[in-house]
């Protein structure tokens, strides 16, 4: 067992799940800073994302927070991006990948710190029987405390373009791209942040799967290392999702954001 990778994956997946940024954006820079090449770290990042996404999935489905229609429609563009990025990353030098990673970490830090709270408000005429997603539309309703909040996705084209960008980042750097997807859904498409976060958790799993298939076919997966990261990420994400409800996510996100900016600076200096 590679205990270092196992521990890194467990801690970053837990912290990432609590902060809502995804753990890979922390894991990959940490692996690179401790000696793993950016080329080798990228697939491990996607393994961490896929494992964390699966671990959180069942709970979020039970909570009725995931909107599959919004997720799968936007994921089309993210998957096209991740395939492009994963193929391009095989052609790029380690220095370029390290700089991309630094840019990703910095952007994640800034975007995470800027994320807003609740935009959509409960509708008193709706009951818990109205919770769910609507057939044939990018809309639905979700339970927020004692109320039910209706929502409808807006500005789909802009959101889709941003999802394509998030996929490209995932393929190039091995980060989940969740730090782009969740703000794109909530701030651009006006999907409530809890629905956006849960739907993103589902879609980053699909993005990672698409990227991992490419990496596997390129012979870039070390199965033993992947297994250690997978085991650590399942534990970390399970703990993180359970703890998330008890902590104040904005405080954790601010801490994560500061850490990511520091990591970005160190990566640029080392590149």
């Amino acid at each position, binding site marked *: *067992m*590679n205990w270092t990778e*196992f521990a890194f994956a467990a801690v970053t997946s837990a912290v990432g799940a609590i902060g809502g940024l995804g753990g890979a954006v922390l894991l990959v820079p940490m692996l690179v800073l401790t000696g793993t090449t950016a080329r080798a770290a990228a697939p491990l990042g996607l*393994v961490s994302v*896929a*494992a964390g*996404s*699966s*671990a959180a*999935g*069942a*709970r979020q*489905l*039970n909570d*009725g927070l995931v909107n*599959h*229609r919004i997720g*799968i*429609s936007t*994921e*089309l563009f993210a*998957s*096209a991006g*991740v*395939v492009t990025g*994963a*193929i391009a990353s095989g052609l790029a030098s380690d220095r370029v990948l390290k700089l991309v990673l630094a840019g990703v970490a910095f952007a994640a830090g800034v975007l995470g710190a800027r994320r807003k709270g609740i935009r959509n408000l409960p509708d008193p005429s709706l009951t818990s029987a*109205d919770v*769910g*997603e*609507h*057939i*044939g*539309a990018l*809309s639905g309703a979700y339970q927020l405390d004692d109320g039910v909040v209706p929502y409808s996705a807006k500005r789909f084209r802009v959101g889709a373009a941003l999802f394509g960008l998030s996929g490209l980042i995932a393929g190039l750097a091995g980060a989940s791209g969740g730090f782009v997807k969740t703000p794109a859904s909530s701030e651009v498409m006006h999907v409530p942040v809890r629905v956006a976060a849960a739907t993103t958790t*589902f879609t980053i*799993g*699909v993005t*990672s*799967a*698409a990227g*991992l*298939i*490419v990496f*596997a*076919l*390129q012979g870039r*997966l070390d*199965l*033993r290392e*992947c*297994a*250690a990261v*997978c*085991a650590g990420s*399942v*534990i970390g994400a399970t703990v993180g999702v359970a703890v998330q409800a008890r902590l104040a996510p904005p405080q954790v996100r601010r801490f994560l954001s500061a850490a990511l900016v520091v990591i970005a600076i160190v990566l640029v200096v080392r590149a």
Partner: protein
Amino acid sequence: MSELDTPIRALPPLMLAATIAAFVFATVGAVVDGRAGTVAAGLAVSTIVAIPLLRVVIVGVHWLRIGDRRFAVVAAVLLAVVGLGAILAVL
């Protein structure tokens, strides 16, 4: 207002079972030496890749059954994009 979709009740327990299976495979793959460990590690990676794609298949089939053809097509196209990526990676 649009008609409400019915949740797929089998999906959460299926996700949970698959995640547990991936964790068991991954732990064996990370701890056990030799061919058995390598096979288990391969199964772990295969499982976590399969889980989200299987979820897209299940949701797409559900949409097709309830007559939401437009989104069923979107799900099918998404799987095609993933498949196309695999083909491009081999070329």
